[in-house]
């Protein structure tokens, strides 16, 4: 049965499509186009004139040691955030799925962190790990560990990863739980009768059947870790120490709005856009093949 609406005139369909078109045009095409345009110029410090440099901004960036280091930082950061947030979420979802009593409360509590804005989450974690007054820092001190993420690059990275992954766990948890509950109970029972213990069942039955969910979350989480973690990094480390937590999106901001190099900043946005598009294409092309729908 085909349910296709046929319009008589041309005006109504245009009117109906217009809101979505305007939103995409104003908030995506226009700024993206502007970024591409600006990436070809170097403006003077007062914003009075712009000088055409062609691909000069890109050439300069790719030769820049700090920019190349930022790629590595981004890769480490986004892999850690994705693995931590998805791993913990899956573990919690498996536990919640087995729960009979109180599962409603458990779920509700787990979903709360999702409502906390990344910048606020960043401040929360910053308070806990503050080098002078942080609760966790104090306890670590009692154990003889001197926590100082302001100086230690590894600790700084660890802290922004945990803070970014924390809020994300709720979101991933919801999807994993829904995915787990969509697996028919009898399939699990059949596997149990076939002799599979919990871990074998998980590896051979549950995880493969969960793969569409996992794949979706993988794409969404990587994009999240590329962009939306800005607030966390800005509040906790501001990209430091020694640029150890300057991921690509943070460098766009730092070079453009702090360093006032708008041409380079625009060029970085363009590169970032290209990377994320490429990653998503790769994910859909290669990983999706291994997904069982």
């Amino acid at each position, binding site marked *: 049965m085909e349910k296709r609406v046929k319009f008589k005139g041309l005006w109504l369909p245009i009117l109906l499509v217009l809101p979505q078109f305007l939103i995409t045009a104003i908030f995506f095409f226009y700024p993206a186009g502007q970024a591409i345009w600006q990436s070809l110029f170097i403006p003077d410090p007062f914003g009075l004139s712009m000088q055409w440099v062609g691909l000069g901004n890109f050439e300069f960036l790719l030769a820049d040691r700090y920019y190349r280091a930022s790629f590595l930082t981004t890769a480490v950061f986004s892999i850690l955030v994705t693995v931590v947030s998805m791993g913990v979420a899956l573990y919690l979802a498996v536990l919640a799925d087995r729960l009979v009593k109180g599962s409603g409360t458990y779920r509700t509590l787990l979903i709360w962190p999702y409502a906390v804005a990344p910048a606020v989450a960043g401040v929360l974690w910053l308070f806990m790990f503050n080098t002078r007054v942080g609760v966790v820092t104090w306890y670590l001190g009692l154990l003889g560990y001197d926590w100082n993420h302001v100086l230690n690059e590894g600790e700084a990275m660890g802290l922004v990863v945990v803070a970014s992954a924390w809020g994300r766990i709720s979101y991933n948890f919801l999807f994993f739980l829904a995915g787990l509950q969509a697996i028919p109970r009898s*399939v699990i029972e059949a596997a149990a009768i*076939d002799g599979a213990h919990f871990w074998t069942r998980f590896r051979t039955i549950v995880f*493969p059947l969960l793969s569409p969910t996992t794949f979706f979350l993988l794409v969404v989480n990587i994009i999240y870790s590329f962009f939306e973690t800005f607030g966390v990094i800005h509040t906790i480390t501001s990209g430091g120490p020694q640029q150890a937590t300057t991921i690509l999106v943070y460098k766009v901001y730092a070079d453009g709005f702090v360093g006032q190099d708008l041409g380079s900043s625009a060029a970085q946005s363009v590169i970032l856009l290209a990377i994320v598009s490429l990653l998503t294409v790769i994910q859909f092309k290669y990983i999706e093949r291994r997904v*069982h729908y």
Partner: protein
Amino acid sequence: MATLTLSNVKKSFGKTDVIHGISISVEDGEFIVIVGPSGCGKSTLLRMVAGLETITSGDVQIDGRRVNDQEPMDRDIAMVFQNYALYPHMSVFDNMAYGLKIARTPRAEIEERVAHAAKLLQLETFLQRKPRELSGGQRQRVAMGRAIVRKPAVFLFDEPLSNLDAKLRVQMRLEIKALQRELGVTALYVTHDQVEAMTMADRMVVMNGGIADQVGEPLEVYANPATEFVAGFIGSPPTNFLSADILGRSGDTKVGVRPEHTRLSDSGSLRARAAYSEALGAETLVHLKCADGTQVTVRQDAASTIPQEGNEVGLDWDPANEMRFDPSGRRC
């Protein structure tokens, strides 16, 4: 090959008792059908034997060993589920081989056993397909195959035919029965369909509200129902029940007469009005209504005369075919 013994098995969910104590002893190679309406606890009973539900009290023994506290995998059983419960991401071969692979059976033996089961079930050409590419009947066969390859002591069937269409159901009914005989495996089969129970069972257990009303051979149960419930549930169309009042007798004994034993006769003392009739070809079912509203069905040969709708006729039967039940529903 094994015996299966249930002794006074009970199940409660919280404070609700679902199964009130059931004892059955299944001989080696016997095909037992548990039949009853939905909610009578028959599936729960089967799941307790499988180890998918805990046993509140009583004992389940397979081949003499108590299995109450054993995991499903250690009980040496195989189960066929109503929705087949095939692994959707695995091929037919992998579905059948799954249990053997987990048991670390040698590759050559796995292939041999799966090939044997596939041949038995005519699935040889489908081994590389995924379950979603199969029809309902084929999926049903794969579920059977998965049970067969493991060579279990006891087969458990949980309404395996209820998702199939009527024609396929009749065919699979015969196939399952033939297969079970050929393999000589003890089987416990749960269904709500009394025809399946009658045709497949060596002995059947009629369950009602968590109690086994009667255990016996199908024809014995049909001819000699122990309770009013069994008389009404087994047999289609169901037994006619007549109160002492309408028969003009004293006491409160209810009388049951099967439709094929009820005769239309002008001399019959019980009068009823013909409501409607269903011609099935070989026979015609005549539905009548007595003065107090009691429904009576009479099974008539197609050749015999069928009363006009609205006409009053007399009903009669051989007293030997009369089944009497006391007010609690027991035979008396």
